[in-house]
């Protein structure tokens, strides 16, 4: 609870059914005069000085609030209470809500790492209180680095080709654009060229109509795509070596030097890689230039026979390539659950500015099988790409099964079984209801053994989810005097399980709808 500041005269409502609502409430409480929370069918009001909140009926909720924050999965609860808001914010697990009219997306991860700070909340409340203020930073997408790392890779190929490789047609503009996946055979794609230059400005911090901050990169791009009166055209002349060198210097200055990367031992039982896949997903912050360039260069290096790009509207890998390695940018990890659900077992190499240690902390889906998931920190050397690909192996069938089971568990178990079971238990905790819970827990353990084995903290007690659930059930069975507390414990244990499984699945359902 925040104290010591005068609360703003605002009414804010948080709609979220899982543990994240507490995180929002703890940041918001004390900063506004009226704070409401809708958690499933429970409505609470949090006066500035009451951390427990006051239970309200649905009728007691206000019809209008100043700001409303809702989790993507809880839209239906919002519809049920019909509360309108001046400003609406949508958040989800990885921080990738789809932009919608009248709804501001929160581009921050909310689970397992709740990446909202008190400063972010101050900005958000200031925006609600004074609309002329700038858009809160949490509603602005973080700048991505995609074009520049891709150009860095291509410059390496031209200037420092890996042993046994020649530059080939490395100096022809067609080669550069082809490796970026932007070349269309008929004519230059004008919108794609405009996006490319916009991306350069964003990634290089280049203000419009100003002198180029990185003249080398700018010169390279204008050489590849010179602008004429009727738009961009494909450069006719080969790119001179000095232009590439100048661009390379600028890229190193912008991206930093390539650092030595941690490498595992190559796997003994690794089979030949048939193909490398990359994904061209058009998520709002999606990026695929670096992964496309890396995949195509890996093909040219002879690491694989083919490099294939998966279209954004068909995240299903053909059976021939189910075990091929996949290159993803960190923004594309959200599409991995969908691929895994459809049986994709290939290794995943994430090309990202963050280390794998950070990535796997934020993305549970990357933790299902050591040796099948790894990251290359941008910028990286081509030799490191080869070395990483040699260490990765496809997922073991058991790990894939564990993951697939978790990915389907939310829909199959939580929505269809756990919620109705909790409702019936709340109404009547007789032996029959308890036996139903007992059977359900067995199903949970059988269907999601990894989530059930994961340590979670409830109150001050840290133990495996399955042991929390078991303990909660035993308490319900053995201590009829304190049913309310025991029921809340069971609900909290289920919520922890839900959060874990939800974080694995990410917001894949949203992605499916978008694609």
């Amino acid at each position, binding site marked *: 609870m925040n104290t010591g500041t005068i609360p703003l005269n605002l009414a804010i409502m948080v709609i979220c059914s899982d543990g994240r609502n507490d995180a929002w409430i703890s940041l918001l409480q004390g900063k506004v005069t009226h704070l409401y929370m809708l958690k499933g069918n429970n409505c609470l009001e949090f006066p500035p000085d009451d951390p427990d909140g006051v239970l309200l009926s649905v009728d007691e909720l206000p019809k209008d609030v100043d700001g409303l924050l809702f989790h993507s999965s809880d839209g239906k609860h919002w519809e049920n209470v019909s509360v309108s808001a001046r400003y609406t914010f949508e958040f989800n697990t990885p921080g990738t809500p789809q932009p919608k009219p009248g709804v501001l997306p929160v581009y921050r991860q909310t689970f*397992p790492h709740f990446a909202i700070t008190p400063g972010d909340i101050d900005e958000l409340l200031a925006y609600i209180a004074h609309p002329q203020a700038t858009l809160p930073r949490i509603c602005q997408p973080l700048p991505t680095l995609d074009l520049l790392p891709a150009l860095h890779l291509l410059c390496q190929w031209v200037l420092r080709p890996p042993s046994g490789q020649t530059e080939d047609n490395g100096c022809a503009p067609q080669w550069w654009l082809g490796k970026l996946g932007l070349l269309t055979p008929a004519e230059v794609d004008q919108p794609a060229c405009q996006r490319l230059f916009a991306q350069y400005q964003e990634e290089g911090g280049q203000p419009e109509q100003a002198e180029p901050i990185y003249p080398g990169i700018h010169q390279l791009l204008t050489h590849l795509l010179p602008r004429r009166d009727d738009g961009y055209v494909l450069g006719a002349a080969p790119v001179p070596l000095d232009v590439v060198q100048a661009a390379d210097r600028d890229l190193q200055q912008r991206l930093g030097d390539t650092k030595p990367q941690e490498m595992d031992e190559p796997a003994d039982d690794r089979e030949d890689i048939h193909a490398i896949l990359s994904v061209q997903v058009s998520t709002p912050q999606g990026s695929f230039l670096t992964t496309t360039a890396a995949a195509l260069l890996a093909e040219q290096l002879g690491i694989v026979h083919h490099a294939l790009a998966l279209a954004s509207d068909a995240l299903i890998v053909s059976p021939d390539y189910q075990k091929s390695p996949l290159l993803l940018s960190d923004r594309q990890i959200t599409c991995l659950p969908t691929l895994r659900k459809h049986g994709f077992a290939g290794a995943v190499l994430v090309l990202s500015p963050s280390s794998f240690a950070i990535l*796997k*902390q934020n993305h549970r889906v*990357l*933790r*299902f*099988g*050591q*040796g*099948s998931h790894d990251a290359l920190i941008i910028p990286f050397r081509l030799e490191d790409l080869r070395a990483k690909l040699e260490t990765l*192996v496809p997922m*073991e*069938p*058991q*790990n894939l099964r*564990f993951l697939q089971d978790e990915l389907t568990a939310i829909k199959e178990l939580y929505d269809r079984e756990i919620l109705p079971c909790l409702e019936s238990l709340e109404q*009547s*905790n*007789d*032996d*029959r209801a*308890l*036996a139903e819970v*007992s*059977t359900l*827990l*067995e*199903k949970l*353990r*059988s269907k999601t*053994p*990894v989530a059930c*084995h*994961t*340590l*979670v*903290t409830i109150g001050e007690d*840290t133990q*495996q989810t*399955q*042991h929390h659930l*078991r303990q909660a*059930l035993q308490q319900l*069975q053995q201590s*009829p005097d304190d*049913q309310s507390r025991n029921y809340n414990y069971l609900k909290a244990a289920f919520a922890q399980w839900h959060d*874990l499984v939800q974080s694995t699945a990410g917001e894949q359902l949203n992605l499916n709808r978008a694609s």
Partner: protein
Amino acid sequence: MTIPRIVILEDDELWLARHERRLTTAGFDCYATQDAKEAIKAAKTDPAIKFVLVDEVLYIPPVPRKAGEGELQRWQGHGVIREITAQRSDVQFIVISAAPQWASDEEGGDQQIFRRETQRLRRQQGVIDIVHKLDIEDDPDGSYGWIIDLLKRSQVSTKAEVVSPRILIGWGFSKETHEAMAEQMDMPRRQFLPLAALLKKSGAGANKLLEQLEQRAEEQQVFLEMPGSKRLDPLKGIKPHSSAFQILSFLARQTERQANILIQEQDYHHSSRSTKKAFSVEVESDSLERQDYAFGVGDDGRRRLKSGVQIEGKVEKSSPLKVAIHRLSQQLHKLNVGPARQLFDYKPEDNGYRPSFELGIVVYAIKPAKDKLPSS
């Protein structure tokens, strides 16, 4: 005899140390590791390794980690077993599972999923038992004693030994009676007491004791014990007083009496469900009269069928025991005891059925009935 080497693969260092200490104290040479890759390598390359104790779900150490964290190793228990058996078919495995048993029997919980999970683990090649961590926590001496005993038994037995599941009839007694019996048998900590031990002590009066105990048992149920397993799974599908129970109970009593383990038509008391009256068209007649009517003596002095007489094959009535055995076989097959056709052998010379699985009787303590929760 050389001491076999045992690989202990457990991601949690506390459990690893616990297993290692117990088995080393029991005289085994242990190779303890948290890394699946290392365990696979050791088992594949060291011929002295004969057993592997393997955890079901394996995280990258250190385990336990902070809440919400944990990355799975490349191989899980199932994968480790598959990798090792691909090269070493002589290695045997005991799977250590952390799966809690959610419901106790009297709470009416459906344990089918738990049983199915356990059976799924047991079906893997080379797996001789599944031990649950909660059992070890509840009774460390008993559980480790069991594992050590199992390892020693498996070490002595040849690998061609045929092991079959056991069906046990359980007789439930009050806690006090159970404790008294346990004391008499010198098995104070055992949940299930083998009746054979008690009968052996009683000597000549064994049959009488058997009958008395059966009459005094407050409840009866059927348990399944899979090969090498310590855990007895109650078979809720077979109710007392059912035909299946009657057959199994009879055969179990025969086993305990050390009599011929065979059930014949006369041992099976069938109560027909049929309400329709069967009309008998058979004419009451003396068998000698029938023979006089049908047969005569020919010129050559031989006995022949008279001209115009035809003997009709007698249609056998379907045997109630045969039907009951068929149904029981189907039931046991579903419980993974074995293929239905192989569970009972028909012995024409004895006109009875002999089970291909082992049977026995155990005595257990009935848990006191739980107070019903008030409905709110």
